[in-house]
């Protein structure tokens, strides 16, 4: 064994082809893969070897494209997974609340049954905001009704007066949350499902 790290030209050419094939991988994975294969070539070949000997080593190693493909499986679900199922889930979570609320639940089922999202994504999709945009409508109605008179103790009308500013602020905050929450969640889910 020699201590030099220079590669046989045929092996170096192979490594270059692997590096180009690995361009579609995330940077860290590409670097690590090329590093490992380079280490393999350093162990398995010597600069003084004949071309035929080096080619035998390369044959055993396999085609660069095939090696990069073996690196891909974990990537594949992320690129393929944003199908009709996922878009329907996002749409129904956003607008399904207007379809008698049933639409939102259908969206929820699609969200939870999809493999494109992990548990955290699913929790966010479920809880921000239940009912989707329809929740903003409900929040508006609720905050409007609490601002007016509420009936207490059988017929006695209690009207809110001074406290309505605070109520207004809370109402607006709730409305904003119910409006922006589902939109942000929809964008988030669309991005995460890649």
């Amino acid at each position: 064994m020699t201590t030099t790290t220079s590669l046989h030209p045929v092996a170096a050419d192979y490594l270059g082809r692997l590096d180009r094939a690995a361009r579609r991988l995330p940077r860290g994975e590409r670097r690590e893969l090329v590093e490992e294969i380079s280490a393999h070539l350093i162990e398995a070949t010597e600069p003084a070897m004949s071309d035929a000997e080096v080619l035998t080593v390369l044959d055993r190693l396999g085609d660069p494209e095939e090696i990069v493909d073996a690196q891909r499986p974990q990537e594949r679900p992320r690129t393929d997974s944003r199908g009709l199922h996922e878009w329907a889930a996002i749409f129904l979570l956003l607008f399904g609340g207007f379809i008698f609320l049933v639409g939102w639940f259908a969206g929820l089922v699609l969200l939870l049954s999809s493999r494109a999202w992990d548990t955290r994504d699913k929790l966010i999709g479920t809880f921000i905001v239940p009912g989707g945009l329809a929740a903003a409508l409900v929040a508006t109605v609720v905050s409007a009704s609490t601002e007016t008179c509420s009936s207490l103790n059988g017929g006695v009308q209690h009207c809110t007066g001074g406290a309505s500013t605070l109520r207004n602020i809370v109402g607006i905050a709730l409305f904003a949350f119910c409006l922006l929450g589902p939109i942000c969640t929809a964008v988030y889910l669309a991005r995460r499902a890649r």
Partner: protein
Amino acid sequence: MVAIGDGVISQLRRGVLEFCVLALLRDDERYGFEIVRALSQADGLVTSEGTLYPLLGRLRKEGVVETTWRESPTGPPRRYYRLTPAGRSLLTAFTAEWVRFRGSVDTLLETGALT
């Protein structure tokens, strides 16, 4: 004659290969080239050596093996792989499952029935 689909064999191979890697590391740490050569010498287990490196990377990401760099007497430093406790318990679990699986399939193939 009906040939066995190539897909079946490669699926079987893909399914068990990671446990073969874990088994190789049961008693000792090994560097990548050592693991790859050991596996490729086993009959019918590996078709192309290069595809084992992505597997090693994935096992590391999954936390079933960990790595350290060590100096090599003959060249640049080598990345050594060894089992983590999680990897060890995964290997133990698979070994038990595999023995059952192999037993059933062997019995069926040999006798045509499960006795």
